[in-house]
């Protein structure tokens, strides 16, 4: 299956700054999801954006989706040390697919 590609692979910022992560994919999708993984733990679902949506907000999270460019971005505003984690985009590749394809992730470090 085609993995998504996240960019950058690692990001280090100061507390209070904004963090932007990007995801590109190659297949047609119905929706795209973002997950967070704290070190050594399972993944937690953050937000889902459908293919007919261009932007979605949830608290300090803002997700955009550009289906023409096959890309999505996750913006975390006013970052906190607790936001330190790896962030993954994920999507179902193909109609009727049960298989959620994950990108390789962006490792975010927020320095207090």
């Amino acid at each position: 299956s085609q993995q998504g590609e996240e960019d950058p692979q690692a990001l280090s910022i100061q507390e209070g700054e904004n963090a932007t992560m990007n995801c590109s994919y190659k297949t047609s999708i119905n929706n795209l999801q973002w997950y967070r993984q704290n070190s050594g733990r399972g993944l937690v679902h953050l937000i889902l954006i459908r293919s007919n949506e261009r932007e979605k907000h949830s608290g300090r999270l803002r997700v955009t989706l550009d289906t023409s460019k096959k890309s999505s971005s996750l913006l975390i505003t006013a970052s906190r040390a607790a936001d330190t984690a790896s962030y993954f985009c994920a999507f179902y590749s193909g109609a009727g697919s049960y298989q959620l394809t994950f990108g390789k992730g962006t490792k975010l470090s927020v320095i207090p």
Partner: protein
Amino acid sequence: DVKVTQSSRYLVKRTGEKVFLECVQDMDHENMFWYRQDPGLGLRLIYFSYDVKMKEKGDIPEGYSVSREKKERFSLILESASTNQTSMYLCASSSWTSGSYEQYFGPGTRLTVT
């Protein structure tokens, strides 16, 4: 809240041993998944199940088998553990009947094969 539990957080096994990793979810989800996660390779799907006694191969099923005898439980079996199966194993569940596409993950099992 959805809860997905895995039988062990850390496991150390010897080469050639048979290894069982168990996953239990309490939300009556029909779909369950096993992934392995390795540095630089991301999450890769090993097997998934969309119903009791049903299973489908993912991207890397070689060396693994699964069992789903009850809806809430999905087991991953390493018939003869090898060192290249040292990894973090993540179980997940989901339900599409509610129109939700998100997956709920367990805390993971870090398996070391020596």
